[in-house]
């Protein structure tokens, strides 16, 4: 596990050195940048996640469908309500889609150092997740797997068109079992540190000429989690691609897989596909 994780910084260093002269973006597929959506803008996103799960000796594919809306409340603040349906937590062979979770996310940009074609920004965020799922796995997320609260910090550096971003957060599972007395230690932990390190860059167009040009971005993200009250730790690597069409719609596809450590998880790899449409200046107010 140790020597395996040593490999990772060098992957990112390679990517950083390799891309410095090229173009990149920070509209990551798996994590959030420190920048917010524009004030008074509205966006809607569908995201699907597919995962292969082995249960009672049966290998089958489970799915989670998520719908979310990002709202730019001001130039520093955005909120994002979301809901999900899925069959990830069903008992095999039940594959019916059921309501799974509802969440609300808020992000406040706290620092911006802008320059032409570059910026360094910091943001703080909180997320509350209500989930109907029972505790089934040791892995702790704020993606709807458990009822949880999350708070964290994001730092993003845009260098011409390369963007590097790091996120660190604390997740507290708020499932009622946490406060029940099971007569000794339970299997599940309730606290984790979740983090990510993301890099992305714009492959096309090489030269911007209009808003209608389709942009093609590629991303590599390192996503990890470490239990605080129960011992587990893993790191995933998630390469992803993104098309931005007409300067208002994003199509994302990514594959996430475990590269080091381990935990009792539903699966160690998953496929994500999402579509997001933005509406600028959608929220009208009489007074500015």
């Amino acid at each position, binding site marked *: 596990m140790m020597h395996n994780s040593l490999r990772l910084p060098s992957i990112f260093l390679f990517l950083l050195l390799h891309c410095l002269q090229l173009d990149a973006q920070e*509209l990551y597929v798996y994590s959030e940048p420190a920048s917010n959506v524009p*004030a008074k803008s509205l966006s809607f996103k569908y995201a699907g996640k597919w995962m292969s799960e082995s249960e009672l000796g049966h290998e089958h594919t489970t799915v989670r469908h998520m719908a979310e809306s990002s709202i730019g409340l001001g130039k520093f603040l955005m909120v994002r309500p979301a809901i999900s349906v899925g069959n990830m937590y069903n008992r095999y062979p039940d594959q019916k889609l059921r309501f799974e979770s509802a969440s609300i996310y808020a992000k406040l940009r706290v620092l911006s150092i802008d320059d032409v074609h570059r910026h360094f920004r910091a943001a703080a965020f909180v997320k509350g997740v209500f989930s109907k799922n029972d505790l089934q796995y040791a892995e702790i997320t704020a993606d709807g797997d458990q009822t949880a609260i999350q708070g964290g910090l994001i730092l993003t550096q845009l260098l011409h068109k390369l963007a590097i971003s790091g996120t660190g957060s604390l997740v507290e599972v708020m499932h009622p079992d946490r406060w029940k007395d099971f007569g000794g230690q339970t299997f599940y932990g309730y606290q984790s540190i979740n983090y990510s390190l993301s890099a992305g860059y714009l492959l096309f167009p090489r030269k911007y000429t*209009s*808003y209608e040009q389709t942009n093609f971005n590629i991303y590599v993200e390192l996503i990890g989690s470490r239990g605080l009250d129960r011992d587990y730790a893993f790191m995933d690597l998630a390469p992803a691609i993104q098309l931005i069409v007409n*300067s208002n719609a994003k199509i994302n596809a990514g594959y996430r897989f475990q590269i080091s450590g381990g935990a009792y998880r539903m699966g160690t790899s998953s496929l994500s596909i999402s579509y997001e449409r933005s509406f600028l*200046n959608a929220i009208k107010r009489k007074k500015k």
Partner: protein
Amino acid sequence: MGILLWSFTSIAQISKASLQASGLTCALCAKSIYTNLTALDFIDSVDTDLETSSFLIVFKPGIKLDIDAIRRKVEDAGFSVSKLLLKVDQGGLAIRNDQKIRIGDNVFHFIGVKNQQSPASFEMRVIDQKFLSAKEFKKLTAGSKISCYQFSKSLPCSMPEGDGGAVGIFHVAL
């Protein structure tokens, strides 16, 4: 007095502006600035140069020019103004260093300029803090003793006598 001056504001002496935004590279980001700018009632058209994140703005004649509103629109999109050049079509203005003159709807305080008569058409750069990158602001204000410029409010630091009808006061360089 105010009413009397009000009537002068319909003469549009500032016809165009060139704005460079900072903190972005993507077309999606530029689009949000473009959309915000075109929503302003005194802006006639906006042309974008995506490579340099620059916007060429043409103002509508006869409508009050609110320079701070332009900046706010860029900031609402999530970015900053790093350069704003205003094109003035008025010759014969007596430009003096550290003096304020009313041009169109706004008062401009000229900083670091040679005393001169303006040519028929010229460009001036707004040098208040929020119209410059942090780096440039530091460089430009290093030797300045003008306190309201140091603290950079594009709000009146001191409006000249009788210019109550002006939209704002801005520090500019040539």
